[in-house]
């Protein structure tokens, strides 16, 4: 088994880096899919407790960017620092991926709940088999987070028995159960029916109000304006503009962001 060294697997995940030390730090990250240059010279720092919005047209590399943060996608150039784990492009090993993923949570567009498990089992499997938490402790955690997302009555159901919004809330609770230092959201409401979008956004908003560090790819601009500390606009694999939400939405500087926002409001 490729366990990382013992210091990395301690079950005290809320040890945060000191003030000023970024939770996520990308330095000159480049990624190619074959010949296609998907991420170009990405430099980005995310401070503890910061909420960063990432938006851009489809194919602009925003999903790829967050998937690089937890090493679901490898990159070919640059350096990455996530929650104190340093990874160079040349050293993306299984052990590094495991170490990063035990500190980073992720919420997917397609929920990706485990269909053969009940809601409770979905929440417990990570802590028990990944972090080595006792079943009792994992169960307590699961109940706590289920309570928070308001799904205590669905505990023994299977994902297929839940609505899309409920599934996504379970997915959020599942990632919280691993007690991440930063949570990545990859278009969490994009595959939901309109009437279910709000319940998920509210869950995310309450998470933000508790100081969770979040990287959010979304097209929900109203939500982004309320929650984000910084907004990033990407196009063609590059970061085009970074600004506080008010400036970002009301006084966009780059012409491409102006066009993009114009299309959203049309």
């Amino acid at each position, binding site marked *: *088994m490729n366990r990382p060294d013992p210091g990395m697997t301690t079950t005290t995940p809320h040890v945060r880096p000191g003030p000023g030390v970024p939770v996520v730090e990308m330095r000159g990250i480049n990624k190619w899919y074959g010949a296609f240059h998907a991420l170009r010279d990405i430099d980005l720092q995310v401070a503890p407790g910061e909420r960063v919005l990432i938006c851009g047209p489809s194919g602009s590399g925003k999903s790829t960017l967050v998937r690089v943060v937890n090493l679901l996608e490898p990159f070919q150039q640059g350096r990455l620092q996530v929650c104190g784990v340093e990874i160079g492009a040349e050293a993306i090993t299984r052990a590094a991926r495991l170490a990063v993923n*035990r500190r980073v949570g*992720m919420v997917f567009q397609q929920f990706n709940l*485990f*269909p053969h498990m009940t809601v409770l089992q979905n929440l417990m*499997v990570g802590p028990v088999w990944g972090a080595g938490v006792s079943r009792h402790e994992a169960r307590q955690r699961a109940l706590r987070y289920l309570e928070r997302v308001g799904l205590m009555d669905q505990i023994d159901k299977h994902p297929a028995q839940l609505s899309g919004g409920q599934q996504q809330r379970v997915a959020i609770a599942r*990632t919280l159960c691993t007690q991440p230092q930063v949570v990545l959201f990859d278009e969490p409401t994009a595959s939901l029916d309109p009437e279910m979008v709000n319940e998920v956004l509210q869950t995310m908003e309450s998470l933000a109000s508790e100081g969770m560090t979040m990287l959010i790819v979304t097209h929900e601009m109203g939500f982004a304006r309320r929650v984000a500390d910084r907004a990033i606009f990407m196009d063609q694999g590059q970061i085009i503009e970074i600004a506080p939400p008010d400036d970002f939405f009301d006084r966009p500087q780059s012409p491409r962001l102006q066009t993009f926002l114009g299309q959203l409001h049309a």
Partner: protein
Amino acid sequence: MTRFVRRTPIEPRHAPVDATAALVRWRRIWFASPAMGTLSLLLTAAFIVCAWRFFQWAIVHAHWRGSSSDACPGDAGACWAFIVARWKPWLVGDYPSDQLWRAWACFATFALLWIWVVRRPPAASVQRVLLGFILLPIAFFLLLVGGGPLPAVAPARWGGLLLTLVVSLATFATALPIGLGLALGRRSRRPVLRGLCAAFVEAMRSVPLLAVLFIAATLLPMFLPNGSNVGLFARALVAFALFNAAMAAEVFRGGLQAVGRGQLEAATTVGLSDFAALRLIVLPQAVTAVVPALVNIMIAVIKETTLLSVIGVNDLLGAVENGAKSPGWVGEPNILTSGHVFLALVYLAVCSALSRYSRRLEARR
């Protein structure tokens, strides 16, 4: 545009009842058109003629009692006396008479397992069934071989239905894990392992089972070191296991592909290692998805066991054929025909039961 606002909601109503008369419906099924009607009549007539002839042969003119071919003169009726009198060879082969309880125990245990499998609540995990099918043949093997307080009985003395049962179960128990290993090997990141697994599976899939059996029976002893006495039975088992492992590998490969990439990614992001993700997330879904296909493999294995008689292992087919050559029963061709018909009925009963079970598993999902 005129405006429409509904003020009174529409209550749900019952679906209309199909009022077509039974006779009309019957006519639609059997006589949809003149051509179809003719075809229906012809097929029905053919079926009645065949069924009547078979009934005459198998029941009316059949011979039920007797201990030699004298009991079955002519070929107007089936010679069931042959089957009745030689019950022991086709049930258990040459198994010692004073140790027969061991064979009966195997049959009874299997019957109990099968009843449990069929009656088990639909929600129960299907993986326990698979586990049962893997553990049972090991227990059977140990019980039948004996040793310790039980007198040893060489596999060469096993035969008939008992042998067919043991070979089928043992094949299932060995081919499934090996097949799973091969399927995982084909997904490995290591090119050498991946290539070897793929080559093995493709080779086995391109060769008839009979050829594999002949190789195991005749060619293999030449490669083994002198004096290593690997019995024909064991070699046949290995051939069966490897051949069907290749079949199972393809089934498992399909099951593994059916589990989406997102599942593995989600497993990674909740902190599971690759091995834990495979064991807890991917395999349970992959295996559940292919259980009907695995049952189909089992049906194929049961039918393939008849090939064992070709290399001289005394399976159900071999027992019946040898019986027709034994001193008391030689001569009448009708006797061997009766034996073959009886075999067909046995295989039909076993395999159709399995295939019905497989269809039920599919419907359950």
